[in-house]
């Protein structure tokens, strides 16, 4: 599903964000990217949704070489990838419904289909009663659930999350991780970048540990669970 072949990313000349990274993530996998700040976790996620291009090497996502994609092909790749951030990235002037509906509008869905699907996904995540509210009136946990609803509403093949629980309390962390787990059970490949030990030990999953732009450990605990 996702393959990185000898990938190097350099924002500055002498300090590459990622250096010679080789990684294969099969379809339906659940992977935690761990490591200290500046280890290259976010850069690795950005490579997958083509927000950065590698200086060297190749990135293959769902059979397509992302490195060779033109800027007109990138949106079509992203339609199969959901992305969630620590700061939620929600439009504060729009309702919860509008924030989630935008993903389907981009895909050209009919208005009535959008209504049904958005309601369905918000109900799954337990926030359908907040549909008309503005995100700024929601708690951190609820805002992250809206961001997750936006990422999951078109049933993406891949779900990426960059420190998704960074701003949440323990109860909300567990709730959010449960949603990731459920998405993974439904067949979505999930990659979560986090340096939160509680999150990483949440379940026995594959852990890719990065340090200074290199993979230090690539451990799969799922078989021991």
């Amino acid at each position, binding site marked *: 599903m996702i393959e990185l072949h000898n990938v190097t990313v350099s924002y500055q000349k002498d300090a590459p964000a990622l250096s010679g990274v080789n990684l294969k993530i099969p379809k339906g996998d659940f992977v935690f990217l761990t490591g200290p700040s500046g280890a290259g976790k976010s850069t690795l996620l950005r490579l997958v949704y083509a927000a950065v291009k590698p200086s060297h090497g190749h990135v293959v996502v769902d059979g397509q070489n992302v490195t060779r994609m033109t*800027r007109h092909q990138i949106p079509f790749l*992203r339609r199969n990838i959901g992305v969630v951030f620590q700061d939620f990235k929600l439009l504060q002037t729009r309702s919860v419904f509008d924030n989630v509906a935008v993903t389907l509008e*981009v895909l050209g869905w*009919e208005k009535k289909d959008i209504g049904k699907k958005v309601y369905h996904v918000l109900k799954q995540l337990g926030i359908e009663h907040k549909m008309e509210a503005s995100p700024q009136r929601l708690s951190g946990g609820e805002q992250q659930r809206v961001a997750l609803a936006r990422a999951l509403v078109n049933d993406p093949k891949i779900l990426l999350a960059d420190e998704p629980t960074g701003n949440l309390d323990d109860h909300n962390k567990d709730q959010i991780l449960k949603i990731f787990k459920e998405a993974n059970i439904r067949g979505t490949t999930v990659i979560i970048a986090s340096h939160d030990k509680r999150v990483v030990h949440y379940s026995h999953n594959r852990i890719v540990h990065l340090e200074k732009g290199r993979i230090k450990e690539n451990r799969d605990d799922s078989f021991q669970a």
Partner: protein
Amino acid sequence: MTRSRHSVRPHASAMGPWSRFCYFAAKAWANLLNNRLVTAITVFTITLALLIISLFLLFYVNIEGTVDQWSRKVVVTVYFEGELTPQEVTSLKGKVSSLQGTDSVQYIGKEEALKRFRSRLKGQESLLEGVAPDTLPASMEISLKKQFRSSEAIASYVAALRKVQGIGEIQYGEEWVRKFLSFYQFLRLLGLLIGGFLLLTVMFIVSNTIKLTILARKEELEILSLVGATPFFIKAPFLIEGMIQGACGALFAIILLVSGYYAFLSNAVNFLSFNPADSGMIFLPPVYIAALLFGGVTLGLIGSLASLKKFVIN
């Protein structure tokens, strides 16, 4: 074999160009309403900018109109020693009228010349004592078409006129014409320079205002790009917003200009020593109004396009 969950997603509706346009227009309208304050500031800036341009145009059109009126005074006069017979006048008028560049020809007989002279010296009639109708020469005044009012064109016209049989002494105030025409050209150049400078300033201000409004919605652009929107999908509502703001700005500028113009006309007599309505002052011709509207829309469109170029990247 079970089908993958991803392959049974509902198909995206096949939007035609018209329904796509309606979708983008509705989105643009909703965005304008959602960001009322920012929209109002942008429209106000465009209104002010276009009002400055239109005031300049109004001023320029009137100055040019006045100068054009003056340029009608560029007249070639042919003097005759004696009075011409009506047959001679008709024949000469025909010959002169057939020359390229002639606009109108008027014969001034000796009597008429004295009458004119008398009216110019109103109040100083004593100066006319002893001046008999025979003293002043008969003449023919030839006014030229607009494109024949340059120094070179007048000179070549006069050369052609000299070849006409029966033509006497020719005068056209060579020095005055030369000075007047160079003043006219200087005025046009000055107008062009000030107009160009104003236009550049206005474009700069408007595009920066629009840039600020787009910068305020940078996160929206980022989210759209993240969920797989094509650059066109992201840009289209913003471009329509820019065009609507530009059109509204132009419309308000025109309304303010019209009200200002008529308020000035009706009140000018109170603080001016002349009535501008009687002095031939004109409002902007319809083509200028259309150009202002078109300019407003284009300004909004170009301002949005230039700003989006900076922010919409993958």
